[in-house]
């Protein structure tokens, strides 16, 4: 945070974090999760999956707030969020796990 004024309770605030699991090979590339993610955590990736679609990937430095909208919106059961606990806003960890693909 490059702001010079900061809330006094900044070190006490905890916000939810989610761990994004993407099951690449189930994705049909409809783009619902990318479009409607409230944090803009996801983007269309340049690589293709076994079906030839572009699955989503995590945008660096944007954190998932565990809202679970992508889990509900995904028509192909290809993305889900695991509760990553609560952390201070400073701790922006782009957590992601790709199922069925070696990183």
């Amino acid at each position, binding site marked *: 945070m490059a702001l010079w004024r900061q809330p006094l309770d900044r070190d006490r605030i905890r916000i939810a974090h989610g761990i994004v699991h993407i099951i690449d090979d*189930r994705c049909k590339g409809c783009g*619902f999760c990318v479009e409607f993610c409230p944090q803009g955590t996801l983007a269309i990736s340049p690589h293709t999956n076994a079906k030839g679609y572009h699955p989503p990937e995590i945008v660096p430095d944007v954190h998932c707030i565990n809202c679970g909208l992508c889990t509900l919106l995904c028509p192909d059961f290809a993305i889900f969020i695991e509760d990553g606990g609560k952390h201070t806003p400073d701790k922006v960890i782009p957590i992601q796990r790709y199922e069925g693909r070696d990183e």
Partner: protein
Amino acid sequence: MSAEAMERSERLRIMNYDTPAESDWETGLHPMDDLLRGERLPHIWCQGCGLGTALTSFISSLKWLEKNQGWDLDKVAVVSGIGCTGRIAGYLRLDSFHTTHGRAIPFATGLKIANPELKVIVISGDGDIAGIGGNHLIHAARRNLGITVICVNNFNYGMTGGQVGPTTPHEARAVTAQYGNYEFPFNLPYLAAASGASFVARWTVLHARQLDWTLRKALIHSGFSFVEIIAPCSTAYARWNPEGKGLDPENLRRRGLEVMKHYQKVGKTEQGIHPKDAHVKVNSSGEVIEIVEGEFLDETRPDFKEAIDQRATTAEKFWLSEKNALDKRKKLPPKKGKVPRTEIQLGGFGGQGIMSAAKIIGMAASIYNNLEACFTQSYGPEARGGAAGSQVVISSTPIHHPHLTQPTSMIMMSQGAYEKYVADLSPGGVLLIDDELVDLPAEHREDIKTFGIPATKIAQDAGNNRAANTAMLGFWTAVEGIVDKEAMQESIAESVPPKTVSINLDVFESGYKRGLDLVKK
């Protein structure tokens, strides 16, 4: 492994892709995989189709109910019809039922009534529920049957290629309405509410979270709950309509997403408004410009099961009182000797008591004389004054054929009935007539025995001319002697109105005496 398959696996290995030994659908990676039949997945729905989202919302609400309301998912049954949406029943690892086209609600009705413990959910498309099965929807709603109907509406017949359907908006295009739809669509929430549904809601699949919450309420709701889900048909409907950006080559691959963005723009949440005002507005080029969504109706009314139970209690009370009366019947000694198959034809005009006379004979024979009896009737459409006939068969052995083949005994109380039936009487049979009402013609049959009494006059003298049939019965009992006199008296006392029992028994007695006199001669 065939050479072709070898080549494919080799190619995949070079691409650094390991074919899993078992599909991850079956091993279960996703938290919803335990409610999905992994062996049938991935599903057939197109890229950008809203059905998958409708399914995740539904599974999500089921999981919430299981966790927070203690629902046993073994007691949940999903029924669906035909179409893209109809495949949901096949993909869910629940008791599910994939039925014939349009008949999902009738199957669900049977399921719910036969096993009221089940939570029955119908998930089907607009073509299935509002098109071919529209009648079933309104009647299930009318009865307030305790099921949940989830109708996924994609505005057209998607599986067959995008034909215009009962929910296609006016002016919208479809493969069979290239110049715009000239018909007007159903407003499904309004239809369901007007038919009597007690919970009505509508959401687009974009509002998956709200849809999840509404489905929880709808599933808990005790009466008929109806939820319309508006979903994009990315391949068929979006191809022809502006929401999916039509034939713009730039957007060809993400039509579903374009429609979802459109829903974000036009969706208007209005909770609790009258379903009449829950429009899907379109402009003159067929583009949807407003979708009113929300929960429109949630009221508590007795559902179909409760109504049946209440009525069953009333009916049971009535039946018990009937049964008590029947148990108090007088026990008479059974008829002595065997009675062969005896056929009796009664005839007259309506209002003379031809039917009740036949019924009295049958009851006397079957209940008080321990014989077998069978009673059939035939009459014209008039309640009074028309031709009427009734037939009784009496026998000691079971009666296998109720229809008269050779009547041996006839009671005729009008000229018309005499002319109609007398030719059927077998030779040597007995014909009993009311003297005053039947004029025997000169060519009257001579191979039969004919006896007559002025039955109507006897009844009039006794003070009730409607007892003429009882006089004929007394006369018949004396002449034929098939049924005992005591049995007939008991049967008459049970059948006629309570105030007229004594008059009827008097008339029966005088008819009986006249009969005895005639037989002696």
